[in-house]
């Protein structure tokens, strides 16, 4: 039981649960987490953080959580875990020391000192952040050359790029890939009616045997119906015209070229 109350572990409980999704951050009156609340409370004691009264701090925090829970029913687990841990620490600090401390439990004073140290550390980092923020910053307080003179540039084999850019590029595409659905483009066919009309128009000029390939439109390689579609539609149309007696078709053997010509019934007769 005591192991679970080590200060280094208690914050991870909610964190690991949220590991798969977005981090759950409940902003309780502008505090980002229990440690930030504790820090704000500790400051009100106006002593060196390392000399802090953990008992007082625990009381203040428990009161804070009570209040916050009153206002917001769904208080983040982190806050409650910290509350439970502080209550436990407080009880141990108040209890008379056992003659023989149980070996698996660190002395309460030591745990309290660690908490104080953690707060001091966080405080130091906040101060550091503040100092960085208020110090002179480029293009805010200090400015570089506004109009740098051109230096002739030669291309080189060095290139720009960092790991983050590489990872972003990768993820960007994988995300695109997962959203992409397969939409086959329906093939464009050469309409039979068009083929028939075209053949009829060509008919007066087709008094000699002409290969089918020469009759069918050549088409364009990039857009429109494919060459195969042109040939197939033209063949079908020509067969219709043959049936109607306007045209003749012949093929010498299987797979050989097909030849077409207009039927000149009157002329031959």
């Amino acid at each position: 039981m005591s192991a679970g109350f080590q200060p280094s572990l208690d914050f991870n409980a909610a964190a690991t649960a949220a590991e798969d999704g977005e981090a759950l951050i409940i902003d309780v009156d502008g505090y980002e987490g229990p440690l930030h609340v504790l820090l704000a409370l500790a400051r009100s004691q106006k002593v060196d953080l390392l000399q802090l009264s953990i008992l007082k701090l625990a009381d203040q925090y428990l009161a804070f959580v009570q209040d916050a829970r009153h206002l917001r029913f769904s208080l983040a687990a982190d806050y409650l875990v910290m509350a439970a841990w502080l209550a436990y620490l407080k009880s141990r600090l108040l209890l008379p020391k056992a003659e023989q401390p149980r070996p698996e439990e660190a002395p309460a004073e030591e745990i309290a000192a660690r908490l104080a140290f953690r707060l001091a550390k966080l405080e130091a980092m906040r101060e550091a952040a503040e100092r960085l923020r208020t110090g002179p910053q480029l293009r805010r307080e200090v400015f570089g050359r506004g109009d740098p003179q051109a230096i002739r540039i030669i291309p080189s084999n060095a290139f720009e790029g960092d790991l983050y850019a590489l990872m972003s590029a990768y993820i960007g595409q994988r995300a695109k890939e997962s959203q992409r659905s397969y939409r086959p483009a329906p093939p464009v066919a050469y309409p039979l009616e068009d083929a028939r009309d075209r053949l009829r128009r060509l008919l007066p000029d087709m008094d000699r045997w002409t290969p089918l390939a020469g009759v069918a439109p050549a088409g364009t390689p990039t857009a429109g119906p494919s060459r195969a579609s042109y040939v197939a539609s033209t063949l079908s149309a020509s067969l219709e015209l043959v049936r109607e007696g306007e045209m003749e078709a012949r093929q010498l053997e299987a797979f050989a070229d097909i030849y077409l010509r207009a039927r000149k019934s009157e002329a031959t007769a």
Partner: protein
Amino acid sequence: MSYPEHRFETTREIEALLFAAAGPLTEAEIVKRLPEGSDVVGALADLSLRYAGRGVVLAYVANAWRFQTADDLAWLMTQEREEPRRLSKAAQETLAIIAYHQPVTRAEIEAVRGVQASRGTLDVLLELRLVRMRGRRRSPGRPVTYGTTDSFLEHYGLSNLSDLPGMAEMKTAGLLSLDLPADFAVPDPNALALDEDPLEPDAPEFHVDFIGEDAAST
């Protein structure tokens, strides 16, 4: 404030203004930006003197003031500078896919990107020695597989391929969004590819070898 101190402040202010400005400033522009009553004309004269003969001089061009490097130092400015090349978006993306999916064929790269890889993209990566031909896939057509090079690792500061940030780090960096499919995985580029034949760097290809020998013997 005594007069000279005032004047000194004004020279400092003009100095900073002209330095940071994106282009030359006219006297009127300078006056407008300085505190009222500043002796701009006097300060400009002071500055002119202060910079005379230095590496940087105060110049009056087209009715405006600017700092410029001294004419006789032009040779310094034309020094060539090696500008690192910026990878195009396509190249960056192709590189990322090769890095994570190696060994990978051109067709596979295209499958992930959803567009045809232009010849130039792979060529640029090969030329920059970020990418190399690794081997051939044991599949019909025996397509060439691509992988990253040592200089890729060097550039990105990786000691080996297993250092390439994986899913955990992508999550940390906030790159993985939640709407990715559940089976989304990032491949381990370090895994041994079993269906790949080496290109055999020593004797690359019989054909090549043969020509080499032939040329040598004639």
